[in-house]
């Protein structure tokens, strides 16, 4: 029996400033010639501050926060992409993530070919992907467009395909970053059913979004992030209320 879980123990994450300062000969020379005055003071960004939480099997969690509050950083840390500065992150289970839609799709290849390519990116075998292909095509519901090059797809169609792949290939933890909003109402209904199914198989969903409606429909637990800190952890409608209060909306 699998028991997927995500555990954060006082996690801190800092983006070191050298990573985005300009490092070229030109910058070095102008630095020497002009002295320090003209340089804007770029400091390390403290993107996650002392975050502790536990997400257990079968939970559907929504992440709220304004731009730059740390939602994406949180998801990418959970996915194991970002190295943390201190604390402890433990993730049990296979992670499937959907962060940026256009990433990893080849625009010149058809939707069907991209199903295979994305599967390979996720570390799956060609045989396995061929087996799942029909199911993915069916769920995405793109009709004959599945054999058209990806560059002809609209944002919504890309979401449908990406979501369909990520949820069909199996995995224990699904991380979604603001992508779900691009689907139409019809697809949202299908997506919701799919997510409910996943959660019944004791999978975990973590969704970052600004769309209160889909958050309320899909998640029961809400986390509010504010400037890298976890300021609220509880029931979704209360989380939305708290988020509005902090950011002075309505």
């Amino acid at each position, binding site marked *: 029996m699998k028991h997927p879980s995500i555990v954060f123990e006082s996690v801190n994450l800092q983006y070191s400033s050298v990573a*985005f300062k300009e490092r070229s000969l030109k910058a070095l020379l102008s630095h020497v010639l002009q002295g320090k005055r003209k340089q804007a003071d770029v400091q390390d960004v403290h993107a996650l501050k002392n975050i502790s939480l536990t997400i257990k099997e079968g939970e559907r969690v929504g992440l709220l926060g304004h731009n730059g509050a740390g939602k994406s950083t949180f998801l990418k840390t959970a996915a*194991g992409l970002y190295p943390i500065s201190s604390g402890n992150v433990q993730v049990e289970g296979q992670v499937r993530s959907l962060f*940026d839609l256009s990433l*990893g799709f080849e625009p010149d290849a058809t939707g069907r070919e991209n199903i295979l390519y994305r599967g*390979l*990116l996720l*570390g799956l075998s060609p045989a396995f992907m061929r087996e799942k292909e029909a199911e993915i095509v069916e769920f995405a519901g793109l009709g004959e467009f599945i054999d058209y090059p990806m560059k002809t797809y609209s944002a919504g169609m890309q979401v449908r395909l990406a979501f369909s792949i990520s949820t069909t290939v199996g995995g224990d933890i699904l991380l979604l970053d603001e992508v779900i909003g691009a689907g139409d109402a019809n697809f949202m209904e299908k997506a919701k059913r799919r997510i409910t199914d996943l959660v019944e198989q004791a999978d975990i969903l973590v969704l970052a979004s600004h769309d209160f409606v889909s958050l309320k429909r899909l998640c029961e637990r809400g986390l509010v992030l504010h400037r890298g800190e976890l300021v609220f952890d509880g029931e979704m409608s209360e989380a939305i209320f708290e988020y509005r209060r902090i950011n002075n909306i309505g």
Partner: protein
Amino acid sequence: MIELMRKMLNFYRNKMFRYFSGIWRSRYFWMHLALSDLRSRWRRSFLGALWSIIQPLGMTALLAIVFSKMFNTDITTYAPYVLSGIIVWEFIAASVTGGSLSFVQADAYIKQCRHPLAIYTLRTVLGSSAVLFMASLALYGWVIIVMPENIGWTWLASLTIFPMVLVIAWPMATLLAYIGVRFRDIPHAAGLALQALWFVSPVYFEAKMFRSGGMDFLVDYNPVYHILQLIRAPLLQGEWPTWENYMYSILLALAFSLIAWLMGRKSEAKVIFYL
């Protein structure tokens, strides 16, 4: 003390094992990347993959005519010498410049999925190895026609150049990629360094030219010479490569691996911040 060292050794061996099993697990992905690189390289051109054979051949014809007149050498033996130089040098240059951009080029994948980063340099090096292999067919063909007396068992040794350059170029590309992701000047600087290396290596110039100028050290201590000998000795002279040729190649591979590993240990996790 010995107990401690054994523990450390075990620790690193486990780490390395896990790293390589990560590479093995993502094999379908990097094989796909390498193949799709080749497909896009050869797509939409009438001759396709044949270009990898024709291009070095044409270059050889030009160079051999000019150089054999300049240096007064026999064109039939000098041309395959130049050809072997061109194809191996092309491989080295492609691995250096392509390798230093491997992580930058793969940023979309690195930001999405956690795979060992060495798969992205492996992809680059595999691509250039495939091109080297195609191009070497021209060399084999040429030598079979012009110097059939060299054909023999030693030719088996010429095949060892392919795995050998792979294990040298892969860690080299990896360590360049780590530097290249922080300093985007690397491809330019590497271009300059390559040119300098080319001048002091027996790539187009014959080894005896260096020797007659009293610069034996540029041949004897030059890893480029030893790598080239792996294919030159059997094909051009009908001889086995010497154990020194293999020694230098293996030492180079080990040195690059060690440096790449030391760098990766510190900076692999942070690469994503620089993309």
